[in-house]
């Protein structure tokens, strides 16, 4: 049996819209992933700690609030504090294209904007993580 890929889907920030995160979580489940979902308003410190406890292969952040340039650096700092620097981190939601190169430079592996088919996320994760 193949080992399932474990992914943490997290929704940081103060807005209450987790539709996108849930759609991605559901699509990943249907593609055979084990998805850990922790609900709304997750601070970066908690996201990193959950990633550690669950020993996930990847973290996906859904960001709609415009706080991506604040949240991602904080998450990377928290991951670094836990020696989880190798973890695959991707993002999605409402993130202006102009901000994407900066996010990638700080270590975000991929950013999926509005309208991305869920298959693109699945293919990306399988391509990067399938053993």
């Amino acid at each position: 049996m193949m080992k399932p890929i474990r992914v943490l889907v997290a929704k940081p920030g103060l807005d209450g819209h987790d539709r996108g995160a849930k759609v991605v979580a559901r699509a990943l489940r249907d593609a055979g992933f084990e998805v850990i979902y922790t609900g709304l308003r997750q601070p970066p410190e908690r996201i990193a700690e959950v990633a550690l406890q669950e020993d996930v292969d990847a973290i996906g952040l859904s960001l709609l609030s415009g706080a991506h340039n604040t949240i991602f650096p904080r998450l990377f700092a928290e991951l670094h504090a836990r020696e989880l620097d190798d973890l695959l981190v991707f993002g999605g939601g409402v993130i202006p294209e102009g901000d994407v190169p900066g996010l990638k430079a700080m270590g975000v592996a991929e950013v999926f904007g509005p309208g991305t088919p869920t298959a693109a996320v699945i293919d990306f994760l399988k391509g990067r993580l399938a053993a």
Partner: protein
Amino acid sequence: MSADLAGKVLAGSRRALARALTLAENGEAAEVLRALVPHTGSARVIGVTGPPGAGKSTLVDGLAKVLRARGESVGIVAVDPSSPFTGGALLGDRLRMNDLALDPGVFIRSMASRGSLGGLARRTGDLVKILDAAGFATVLVETVGVGQSEVDVAAAADATLLVLTPGMGDGIQAIKAGILEIADAIAINKADLPGADRLDAELAAMLALAPPAPWTPPVRRTAAATGEGIAALLDALDDFHAWQAETGERARRRARRCRAELAAALEDGIRAQVLAALPRDGIEAVIARVEARRLTPADAAAELLAAARLPEPGADGRILEFY
């Protein structure tokens, strides 16, 4: 690497603990478990089971908070179902446990059932052992939402807490057969909803009808979302714990668990060895005869096993006595 990993787990590394749990979940922790098993046996293992939506995760969260207030460390394994079609899973139990996520005295691990049908995953017991060895005073094991017969948790835990809710009406009928029998304590959760009195009465009637037993499961009302009644529920579990220690029941239960775990491990090994011994050729032809309804599946299996030339089962069957 693995021996080193066990050492780091014993030294309190949370990262090592997480890795060890992953290895165990994937059935790759033989070496780690070999090093850790001598350090197990101190933790109190409480299984929490009940129908979907009964509030198991919220109650586990509440129990952990009361234990933490007493200064005890808590390990949690929360099992959610895997899809039988894709193998994928959405693990959402810790959604109800967010307050505990950053507590250094708590470690929560979500686990997919990965095809097991007994309410736990095949390797849940191994994860419990690792948390036990890592020094957690109490390990809470939350099953998937269960129906009538998913009773594996009773074999995996020292104590089994059954969580029910009012308003299930005749739903109580559905659970009385299997799962009520494994309960060492019962929580009527969401007790602020209408119907708690009726459920309480129904449970009392049903427990009164049960054959005489040395322990009758206490029934406690809780409202896990507000924390009401949880301290009293934990007191009831403490009573059971003390009774178990006094009477030797815990040692007996743990001894039975050892035998069950050995049996399960043997069956894994037996299956693998026998499958390896089956003839490669001719299996499809046998299957075709079964599909054509000219051969029963049982006769087909007998034919394949005969071709594998395994030793005949001994007449006295003494090896099987320990089951």
